[in-house]
């Protein structure tokens, strides 16, 4: 994956809770066997509504998506992360992400930024008031800043995930370095565990 240090730009405020991955990318799109071309599927059912926030011109060119509580619930489809990224977003902000969605973000270099309910609300209102508001997410310092509205806060990311973002590391390559440990573990497995001939 590509290294990410700073995400800087404007944001789209998606002021809804429980945005599930079926909304992010409807299942029709999951039939594809490729890893690219999902940007058109992003929120495709909601985008038919002319007033939907992604269709509002003032937010065009934004590279940060601000969602509500419980963002990315439901299906494990990584296509949701691919669609968000391929549409042009580099980071998603929410007070709480669903586990699988968050994991999928970290495997693809889409920065999941967890902030408090209050900060999330403040950011959404600030962006609605001024769509050109510049927001900076710093993966090294783990900060979110919007100086124009005096907002500065931190967000959590484990050291291991932070390092992967900063260095753009390949998870599988890292694990394969531990092949001897895996070999050793396999000698201790219970003999009755199922295995195919």
């Amino acid at each position: 994956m590509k290294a990410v240090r700073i995400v800087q730009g404007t944001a789209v405020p998606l002021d809804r809770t429980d945005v599930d991955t079926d909304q992010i990318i409807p299942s029709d799109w999951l039939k594809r066997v490729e890893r690219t071309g999902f940007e058109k599927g992003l929120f495709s059912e909601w985008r038919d509504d002319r007033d939907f926030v992604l269709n509002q011109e003032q937010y065009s060119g934004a590279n940060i998506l601000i969602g509500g509580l419980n963002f990315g619930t439901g299906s494990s489809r990584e296509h949701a992360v691919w669609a968000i990224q391929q549409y042009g977003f580099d980071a998603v902000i929410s007070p709480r992400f669903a586990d699988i969605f968050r994991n999928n973000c970290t495997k693809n270099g889409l920065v999941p930024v967890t902030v408090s309910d209050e900060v999330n609300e403040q950011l959404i209102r600030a962006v609605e008031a001024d769509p050109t508001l510049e927001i900076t997410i710093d993966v090294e310092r783990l900060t979110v800043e919007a100086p124009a509205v005096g907002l500065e806060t931190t967000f959590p990311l484990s050291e291991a995930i932070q390092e992967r973002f900063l260095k753009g590391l390949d998870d599988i390559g890292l694990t394969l370095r531990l092949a001897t440990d895996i070999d050793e573990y396999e000698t201790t497995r219970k003999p009755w565990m199922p295995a195919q001939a």
Partner: protein
Amino acid sequence: MSQPRTLSQKIWDRHLVTPGVGGAPDLLYIDLHLIHEVTSPQAFDGLRMNGRPVRRPDLTVATEDHNTPTEDQDKPIADEISATQIETLRVNTQEFGIVHYPMGHENNGIVHVMGPEQGLTQPGMTIVCGDSHTATHGAFGSIAFGIGTSEVEHVLATQTLPQARPGTMAITVNGELQAGVTPKDVILHVIGVIGTGGGIGKIVEYRGNVFENMSMEGRMTVCNMSIEGGAKAGLIAPDETTFEYVAGRPNSPVGAELEAAIEDWKTLATDEGAVFDEEVIIDAADIAPQVSWGTNPAQVMPIDGVIPGPDDFDDPNLANTAARALDYMDFEAGTPIKDIKVDTVFIGSCTNSRIEDLRAAAAVAKGRKVADGMRTLVVPGSGLVKQQAEAEGLPEIFREAGFDWREPGCSMCLAMNPDKLQPGERCASTSNRNFEGRQGRGGRTHLVSPAIATATAIAGHFASPEDLA
């Protein structure tokens, strides 16, 4: 004496290849990797691009389910994109030497029906699949969770996953269930209590006499929907019910090995004095047969209730979500649930397509007729479930009552195959998600048990079996 541990902590500890040090995740060994056509093609491409083999094809089993039509399975799949995705799985499993059950094979079926049926799911294991309903397998006392495609590739290449240790949550339901309350009602009620995000970051252990008294299939229905409460996984301590179910299946241990396994499995239960990060206690008597009214699985009501309004919620987030849901579902607050007409009934999915579900539905359907104009689908979860149902004469009961008896697959759970809702159609469904458009663009889904679904098909509006003449 070592610290008392919970069931999930014990299984986790057993699977540590290397513990995470200094904030790094643990490296967890994966005993079983189930794959299907939707979330695996890009993972196999990744392996090929990097010249990496599958480390343990012998611990990997594939089935096709999401795209498979539930009619005419002996003919080629008409939808070209679906056909390509399925063909891709066949080519990939062939190339990498992975056992695969294609459409039409008696072992083919929904991945979470097939695994337990084949004895692949056993207590004390770690099981993953690129599918969020993988927690189903937790019914056996396993840690089972859904993963994304990058993680599918990781497991294929290494048979391990780097994972932060989840928290623990106990959901205890004790007491006597009211008549007519099924495992589906229990889990819908639980999700209604904890909310869609209540379990995020945690593995839920379902405890108490209600789960102890449940059959394995009932426990699977419960664990299946753990993700709808946000949980990473859900599990239930293995007991005699579990051992009896596992014994005698194709991949299960036999003889002395089975005895040794059972002795070991008995040690997995949560130790006395172990502490959970969070505990939720529910009185079984408070649980009624449930119907979901909104667009997330926490928006549920007893079937005797009325559609709530935004004013019924103190939390502004819940009130806003309710307002949006009422709009999408085309409801007025205050409408009695039993007055709501439906035009489609779906009985199936990884939540409710096993033989006990079909028996429960057939018991209600027997000697009755579905309402005029009602579209119905009864979809067995696997080829073996279908065979068993046929041996018991269930298809005849369904057909005589006017239900459409189909071939196995995910069917109308998720709109990836020909079984879909049309815009504005309203469906009583035994599946697991009532998200907007989940069963087809513009479709409206109500989650219910097989008994309620069947009674509703006959009455034409939401109904319990007791409501039928």
